[in-house]
C-alpha cells in the first residue's frame, strides 16, 4: 500500500470514528441524565437491533430508504451539487409508485408491475430533481436553496393531491395498490416475521453496484467527477458542464424517487402523506458518513437505521428522542472533522492548494483601535 492510498483511507475513516466516539459520550450523558446505566442501555440498543431477526429486519428496512436518499445526495455531490431535495423527490417517487400500483388491474404480472412501479417512482423523483438542475444550469440559481424550497412546494402539492383527489376517507393515504407489491423478507425467511424488511433491499444493492460502476468505471462517471472536482478543467477537457450538472441532478432525483418503493410497494402498499418523515434530510448525513461512496453509504445507512431502531428498543429506559440528538451530534462532528483531518494530513505532507499566504494569515487578531 502506498503512502497516498494509506492517506486516503485515513482521511475517509478518521472522521466517522471520531464522530461515533463523540456521539457515544453524548449518549452516555443523556442516559445518565435519565438515571440509566449507559452500559445497560447500549447493550439493549444492540440487542434490539442486531440481536434478533425482527429488530434486524427493521434495521434493514430503514436502511434501505436511507441508502436510496444517501446515494441520491452522493450522486449529486460527486458532480459538485448539493441535493437537499431528497425529501420531496422521495415522496414524489412514493406517490408515483402507489398510483401505478393502484391503476394496474388485480392480477397484473407481479414482476412487470414492480418494474413499472420502480420506473415511475424513478421518473417522478427525476422530474422533481430536474427542476433545480434546470434552474441551476439555465439561471445559475443555487441548488441548495432551490431544492429546499422545492421540498416545501412538492410536499404541499402532494398533500393537496392526497387531500382532494385520491384518499381513503378519514385518512391521509391512498387506497391500497392492486399490483406491484414487493414481497417481504419474511416470506423467504420466517424469522423476519413482523418486520417491514422486503426485497427492495435487493434493488438498493443493485443500485449501489450500478452507481459505483458508473462513477468509477464509465466515461460518464469520469466526466461527472471531473465536473465536481474542477469544473474549469472539465470544460477545458471538452465536457459540457451544464449537461453534466443537469443530468446529475436529475439522476440524483431518480435515485431518491426510487426509494419510494420501499415504503409504498414493500411495506404499506399505499402512499401516505408525510411518509418521507425526514429520511430525505437524513440522506445527507448518510452520504456524509459514507463519504459519498455507494458501499460506504450502505454501511452508513445501516448505522443510522440501527440508531433509529435502537431508539425504539430502549424507549422504556431512555426516551427514543435521544436518537434524534445523537444523529445531529454525529453529523456536526463529522462535518467538523472532515476538513480538519484533511488539513492535518495535507499540512503534514504538502503545500496547501489554496494561496498559502491567505491560508496562514493571522486573522484571529485584534483590530486596531478606531481613531477618536
Amino acid at each position: 500500500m502506498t503512502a497516498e492510498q494509506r492517506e486516503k483511507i485515513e482521511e475517509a475513516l478518521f472522521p466517522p470514528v471520531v464522530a461515533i466516539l463523540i456521539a457515544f459520550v453524548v449518549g452516555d450523558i443523556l442516559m445518565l441524565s435519565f438515571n440509566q446505566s449507559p452500559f445497560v442501555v447500549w447493550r439493549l440498543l444492540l440487542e434490539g437491533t442486531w440481536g434478533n431477526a425482527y429488530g434486524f429486519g427493521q434495521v434493514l428496512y430503514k436502511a434501505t430508504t436511507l441508502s436510496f436518499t444517501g446515494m441520491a445526495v452522493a450522486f449529486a455531490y460527486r458532480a459538485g451539487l448539493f441535493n437537499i431535495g431528497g425529501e420531496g423527490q422521495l415522496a414524489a417517487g412514493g406517490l408515483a409508485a402507489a398510483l401505478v400500483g393502484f391503476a394496474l388491474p388485480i392480477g397484473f404480472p407481479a414482476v412487470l408491475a414492480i418494474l413499472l412501479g420502480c420506473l415511475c417512482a424513478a421518473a417522478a423523483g427525476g422530474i422533481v430533481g430536474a427542476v433545480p438542475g434546470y434552474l441551476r444550469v439555465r439561471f445559475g440559481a443555487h441548488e441548495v436553496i432551490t431544492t429546499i424550497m422545492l421540498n416545501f412546494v412538492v410536499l404541499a402539492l402532494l398533500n393537496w393531491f392526497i387531500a382532494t383527489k385520491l384518499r381513503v376517507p378519514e385518512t391521509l393515504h391512498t387506497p391500497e395498490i392492486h399490483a406491484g407489491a414487493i414481497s417481504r423478507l419474511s416470506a423467504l425467511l420466517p424469522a423476519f416475521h413482523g418486520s417491514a424488511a422486503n426485497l427492495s433491499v435487493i434493488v438498493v444493492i443493485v443500485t449501489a453496484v450500478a452507481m459505483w460502476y458508473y462513477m468509477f468505471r464509465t466515461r460518464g462517471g469520469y466526466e461527472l467527477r471531473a465536473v465536481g472536482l474542477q469544473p474549469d478543467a472539465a470544460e477545458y477537457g471538452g465536457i459540457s458542464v451544464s449537461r453534466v450538472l443537469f443530468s446529475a441532478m436529475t439522476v440524483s432525483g431518480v435515485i431518491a424517487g426510487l426509494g419510494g418503493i420501499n415504503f409504498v410497494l414493500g411495506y404499506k402498499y399505499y402512499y401516505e402523506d408525510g411518509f418521507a418523515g425526514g429520511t430525505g434530510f437524513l440522506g445527507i448525513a448518510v452520504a456524509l458518513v459514507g463519504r459519498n461512496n455507494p458501499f460506504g453509504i450502505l454501511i452508513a445507512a445501516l448505522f443510522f437505521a440501527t440508531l433509529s431502531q435502537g431508539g425504539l428498543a430502549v424507549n422504556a429506559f431512555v426516551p427514543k428522542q435521544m436518537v434524534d440528538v445523537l444523529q445531529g451530534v454525529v453529523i456536526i462532528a463529522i462535518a467538523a472533522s472532515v476538513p480538519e483531518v484533511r488539513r492535518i494530513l495535507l499540512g503534514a505532507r504538502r503545500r496547501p492548494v489554496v494561496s498559502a499566504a491567505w491560508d496562514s494569515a493571522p486573522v484571529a487578531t485584534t483590530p486596531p483601535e478606531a481613531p477618536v
Partner: protein
Amino acid sequence: MNSFAIVTQVLRIAVPYLFAAAGGVIAERSGIISLTLEGYMLGGAFAAVVGTFYSGSPVIGAMCGIGGGIVLALIHAVACIRYRADQVIVGIAINLFAVGITRFFLKLLFGSSSNSPRVDGFAAGYGNPVLWLGLLSTPFVAFILFRTPFGLRVRATGEKPEAAASVGVSVHRVQYMAVMLSGGLAALGGVYLALDQHQFTDQMTAGRGFIAVAAVIFGRWSPLRAGAACLLFAAAETIQIHLQGNHVVASQFIEMIPYVLTIVALAGVVGRAIPPAALGRAEA
C-alpha cells in the same frame, strides 16, 4: 372582521419571521449560511418555556430563550468557523439536533412527548413587548449593518474576507459575533411563538425558520427588504386563513407562495438575488 384586526393578525404571524429573517440577514452578510434559523427558533421557544416555567417570569423566560438560541448558534459557529465544516450540512444538523434536544428535554423535564404544561406569557396583542421588539428587529439589524463599525466589518467579511483581514479586521471574531447575534434574534422569534401560545409543543416552529430563509433571499440580503418579505408572506398566510372553508384556492397553494417566490427570485426573473460573495466559503 375589520381591517385593524387583519393588520393585527398579519403582525402576529409576521413577528417570528421578522426576528428570524433579521438574524438570517446578519449571519449571511457575514458569510455564514443560515439554514439554522429553524433550529434557533425551536431552541429559543423551548428554553423560554422552561425558563418561564421554573421562574414564573416570562421576562426571565425570554432571556433563557435568547440564551438557548445563542448556545445553538455557538455550536454552529464553532463547527463552521473554527473547524471549517460545510455550513449547509452543519445547518441541517443543527436543526435536527434542536428537534432532538427539545424533544428529549420535553420528556425529561415534563414527561411528555408532545407539549409542555401551560406557562405564563406576556399580555396579549399590542401589550406584548416581544411583538414590538419583533417589529423593531428589522430596523435594528439595518442600523447595525449600515451605521456601525461592526456592521461595516460584517459586510466586508461576507463579501471579501481577505480584504477585511488585510486591514486587521478579525474575520473570525466578526463571524462569531454575527452568528451569535443571529441566534439570539431568531430565538426571540421562538420566544414569541411559545409565550404567545403559553406552551411549547414538539416542532412548534413548523418550518417558519425556512420561511425566514426564503424572506432573506427574496429580500436579497437587505434587512428592510427581508422584513418586507416577511410581512408579505404573513399577509398571504392571513388571506389563506380567511379563505379556509370557501374553496376558491386550496390552502396548499397559498402555503407555497414564499417558496415559489424565492425560487423565482433566485432564478432572476425579477431582480436577480445575488448572495454575499463569500457566503458559505469555508476558508479563513
